[in-house]
């Protein structure tokens, strides 16, 4: 009997664990180690953050789902990896520290035959002075990165609306809280949901809503922007996004590295080297992401973390990490199998793998401060990668070490994104977008780097309906209800 250990129970880890168990059956063991007791459909946190959904609408307990699937669930955080074993044995293991199941604080060694790292990111609020400490959100801003953060964000937002109703003009600032952030899409969706809710509440005229981001142009989204088919034109996402912001009276600050947050004020540096301040009454700033901070040790106890993890804390996989300057970047730099190059029984999926480089064109201020979005690896790509890696591990277990590894390069896969503005079935609108491929391939698609037949975006009610369907469909799938395997990632 082989044991697969999956570290992390988010979109990618949950997908990998559940498919692996389905394919492996009871002959082999699948263990999920995650510090969270609940699964969270993160895209709907946006609706929690404006009070359109409750926390309970976007989370469910993992334990009963894993019990039904026959997956061993350990509510614990992984601390270190020992790929050569330890003093007692040569068997690979990880150390974990329980966060629940009435074993809080207990440390355990967990042996594995195959390991999938799907921890997601550390929310690195501490990277920006005043934004928070370590992975803990500070007092001056809010976040929608977790369901609890979103609940808190809504409570703060409703106070802003109450003040606006009382005739007090309010300033709202939404965007990224550091020059190296990703997930601009979440902030993008949140700002337009706030704008929509403010109109519904009759307080839009009392709010000054502003966007601040590290993108060098509006609509970069960490993917270097995209060209989409809109109204018969092939249009840059810059034009698409600027139109959306202008229509809704939301001015923007771009190319900004937020370097300090204090009560009611952010300080930032722009690409041209100038600095500025922006006051706010309410601010939602996405933090930068890093790896969760695993350590790796050799058999003699020496630290080998840097051989397995990149400096940003994400796990090295089969990517080309020495591509060099932007001019040398190729779609083929991106990983296909997500296998660690040294330890062939170790994989990283979702946000946990180290990308070879940015997707957006690198940029830094004249002072040398890097200000560019880092690559998004969430949602649809995370699920597809998790499933492909689960397939590979199952084949390795069943067919041996020479089994064919399944591939899921972000340069050969697309992504669908629906950014809502409101939640009503007949009111509000949503921007529905697809991009194919996520990482542009200028050799295959000279010009825009993408297939413009399948890279498109439009605004309307239809996007709303799709967002509702996705919410219910993916939670249904994650709960492993009948027919769950038929729902694509």
């Amino acid at each position: 009997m082989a044991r697969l250990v999956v570290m992390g129970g988010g979109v990618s880890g949950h997908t990998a664990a559940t498919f692996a168990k389905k394919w492996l059956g009871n002959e082999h063991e699948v263990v999920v180690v995650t510090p969270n007791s609940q699964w969270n459909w993160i895209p709907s946190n946006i609706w929690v953050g404006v009070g359109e959904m409750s926390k309970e609408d976007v989370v469910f307990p993992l334990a009963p789902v894993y019990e039904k699937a026959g997956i061993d669930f350990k509510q614990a955080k992984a601390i270190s990896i020992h790929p050569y074993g330890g003093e007692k044995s040569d068997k690979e293991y990880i150390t974990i520290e329980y966060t629940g199941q009435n074993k809080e604080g207990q440390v355990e060694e967990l042996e594995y035959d195959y390991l999938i790292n799907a921890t997601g990111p550390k929310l690195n609020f501490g990277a920006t002075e005043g934004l928070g400490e370590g992975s803990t959100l500070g007092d001056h801003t809010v976040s929608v990165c977790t369901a609890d953060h979103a609940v808190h964000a809504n409570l703060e937002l409703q106070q802003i609306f109450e003040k606006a109703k009382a005739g007090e003009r309010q300033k709202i600032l939404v965007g990224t809280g550091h020059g190296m952030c990703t997930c601009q899409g979440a902030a993008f969706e949140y700002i337009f949901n706030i704008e929509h809710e403010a109109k519904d509440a009759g307080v839009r005229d009392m709010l000054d809503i502003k966007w601040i981001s590290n993108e060098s142009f509006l609509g970069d989204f960490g993917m270097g922007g995209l060209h989409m088919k809109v109204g018969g034109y092939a249009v840059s996402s810059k034009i698409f996004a600027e139109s959306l912001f202008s229509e809704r009276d939301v001015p923007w600050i771009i190319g900004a590295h937020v370097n300090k947050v204090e009560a009611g004020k952010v300080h930032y540096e722009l690409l041209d080297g100038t600095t500025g301040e922006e006051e706010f009454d309410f601010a939602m700033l996405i933090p930068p992401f890093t790896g969760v901070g695993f350590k790796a040790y050799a058999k003699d106890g020496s630290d080998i973390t840097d051989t397995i993890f990149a400096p940003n804390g994400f796990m090295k996989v089969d990517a080309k990490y020495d591509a060099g300057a932007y001019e040398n970047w190729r779609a083929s730099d991106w990983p296909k199998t997500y296998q660690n190059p040294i330890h062939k029984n170790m994989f990283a999926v979702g946000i946990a793998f180290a990308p070879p480089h940015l997707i957006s064109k690198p940029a830094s201020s004249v002072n040398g401060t890097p200000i560019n979005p880092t690559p998004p690896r969430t949602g649809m790509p995370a699920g597809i990668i998790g499933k492909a890696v689960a397939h590979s591990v199952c084949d390795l277990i069943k067919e041996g070490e020479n089994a064919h590894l399944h591939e899921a390069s972000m340069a050969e896969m697309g992504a669908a994104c629906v950014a809502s503005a409101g939640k009503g079935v007949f009111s509000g609108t949503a921007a529905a977008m697809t991009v194919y491929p996520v990482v542009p391939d200028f050799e295959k698609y000279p010009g825009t780097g993408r297939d413009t037949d399948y890279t498109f975006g439009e605004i309307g009610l239809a996007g709303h309906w799709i967002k509702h369907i996705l919410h219910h469909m993916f939670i249904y799938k994650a709960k492993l209800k009948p027919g769950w395997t038929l729902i694509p990632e």
Partner: protein
Amino acid sequence: MKPEERNFGKNEQFNYTMIPGGFARKMRTCVIFQAFRFAVINIKMLVVVSKSH
């Protein structure tokens, strides 16, 4: 002043963009048109999903 023209004067940034007019905005919430777009978007998304697996 038409609604779509109002924001151009509010901000220098807005002045160099395009803002949808009444017809475009109406079509965004027209249930019949959006039902058709819903079908089209879903088909395109399914193609993208199938090409990605």
